[in-house]
């Protein structure tokens, strides 16, 4: 039976575009009469929403979902919605490969988040961890500012910020490019293909108890929506422009780089576990102490 309401949440990043598109096209009408999408900006909102029960499903970083699951919050992962949207942005021609980062100043916003771990792991694999000067930046905004003035050489940014900074750079006469696709780099390391299963749709305990039967149809709809969107990015960008508070033109340019997908969680399990294992190397607590067990994978 369809649910009375479906409260979707998502961060202001690529995967939420899929949700926005699905909501705007009315595709989710079979699942619930009243569908809403809210963009959260910081994890506290997520925490508050999960506790107070205002959230049914939310796009969350896979690592956060694993932690929540392992801490007994009953949150389960439905699918993976992006295969990674991380890029090293640098002035054109400066970097020709990951190894070129040696001796450069690199900013990584989002400390303690997935990009941070991925970058550190890659630096270690390439044996250049000591020669790269990691400059902390509080937010993508600061990283972009530093990059555009040349105070740092490169920054790790995710979509759609990576697209925005390209546009801003062009306006200012600086050509900044996606110099390194971190997904590909990561794929080389894991041997599982260019996939960083950074974020996915997580379902709350309450929703999976009350409407567990709706999860599979929802996934099917999202697969559909993803395919549609990749075919017509301009339309999807139009739909997502409001919730994400970004101009549609920017989003349209960004979508192709977002590696959007709707891979069922269990299908992505090897990629996820590869990523989780890497994170757990430094401190298992970051994923809640252990790899999440079967129960974590809702589909």
């Amino acid at each position, binding site marked *: 039976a369809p649910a009375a309401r479906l409260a979707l949440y998502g961060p202001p990043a690529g995967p939420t575009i899929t949700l926005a598109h699905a909501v705007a096209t009315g595709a989710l009408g079979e699942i619930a009469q009243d569908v809403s999408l809210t963009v959260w900006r910081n994890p506290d909102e997520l925490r508050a929403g999960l*506790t107070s029960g205002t959230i049914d499903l939310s796009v969350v970083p896979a690592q956060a979902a694993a932690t929540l699951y392992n801490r007994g919050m009953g949150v389960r992962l439905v699918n993976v919605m992006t295969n990674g949207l991380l890029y090293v942005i640098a002035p054109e021609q400066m970097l020709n490969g990951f190894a070129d980062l040696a001796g450069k100043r690199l900013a990584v916003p989002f400390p303690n988040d997935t990009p941070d771990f991925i970058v550190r792991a890659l630096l270690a694999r390439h044996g250049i961890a000591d020669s790269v000067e990691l400059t902390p930046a509080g937010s993508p905004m600061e990283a*972009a500012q530093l990059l555009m003035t040349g105070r740092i050489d490169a920054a790790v940014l995710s979509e759609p910020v990576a697209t*925005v900074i390209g546009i801003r750079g062009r306006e200012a006469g600086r050509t900044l490019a996606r110099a390194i696709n971190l997904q590909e780099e990561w794929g080389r390391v894991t041997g599982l293909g260019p996939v960083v299963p950074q974020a996915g749709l997580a379902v709350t305990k309450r929703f999976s108890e009350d409407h567990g039967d709706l999860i599979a149809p929802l996934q099917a709809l999202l697969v559909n929506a993803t395919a549609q969107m990749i075919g017509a990015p301009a339309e999807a960008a139009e739909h997502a422009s409001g919730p994400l508070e970004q101009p549609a033109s920017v989003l349209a340019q960004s979508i192709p780089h977002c590696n959007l997908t709707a891979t069922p969680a269990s299908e992505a399990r090897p990629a996820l576990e590869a990523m989780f294992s890497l994170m757990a190397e430094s401190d298992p607590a970051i994923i809640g102490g252990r790899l999440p067990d079967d129960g974590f994978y809702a589909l």
Partner: protein
Amino acid sequence: MGDRLGRLGRFAWSGWSGLAAVALLAAVWQAGHEAYGDFILPSPMATALAAIGLLAAPENWTLLLVTMRRALSGFFLAGILGALLGVIAGYAPAVMRLSRPLLTVALGVPPIAWIVLTMIWFGASDATVAATILVSATPVVFVAGAEGVMTRDRGLDAMAEVFGAGPIRRFLSVGLRQVCAHLLPALALALGTSFKVAVMAELLANAGGVGGALARTRAMLDITGALAWVMLSVVALVVGEYGLVRPVRAELERWREAAQPWGVKR
């Protein structure tokens, strides 16, 4: 009448020196701009133009008014609560001893430790912003109120008592005025804090207003736009300050000015 005119004159004069301060600030800003370029620090001129541009759209006025309303309501709450508790603590040492540690905690705990609680209670609403302001701005008002009471001239209290004033009348006619002398500078601080915290809380709690606009412009890496919003919020603050705190203060400080006649060396 002449007296009021004179005060108006002095106000205008202080306006001039305010202008001088703004000019100074703009000069430093411009220098920073020239040193670091548009991406770090857009020029004051460009920012001001952007701000004026923002004001052309009525929906931006709404955002500004939303933030101003939140900041002011938080400020009033913090002012009233802080002053009330402070005054009580000033008169009752027991209350003081009990509330000092709580004050320290309120002061020293970073907002991220409890902001999630306010978000649960109030959602992304005015109340979350107000609560954040309350915690940030109340201590300074509280301390000022308590100090005002504790450092009051007890001789005047005794005088009022002799002439038949009960505790309440005594406080209203003698204590309050002395408390105000401490309270007003603190209220000016609290007002500034309120605006800043309102913007930050909106930004963190995703609650619209200027903070929301700031978050949006930042997401778009629109540095000039972000600074323009900050500028608008500061202008709103200045309007609030000159509209609210200063006039009261000038009225209360009249006798103190009388104590500084021109001929007397300072």
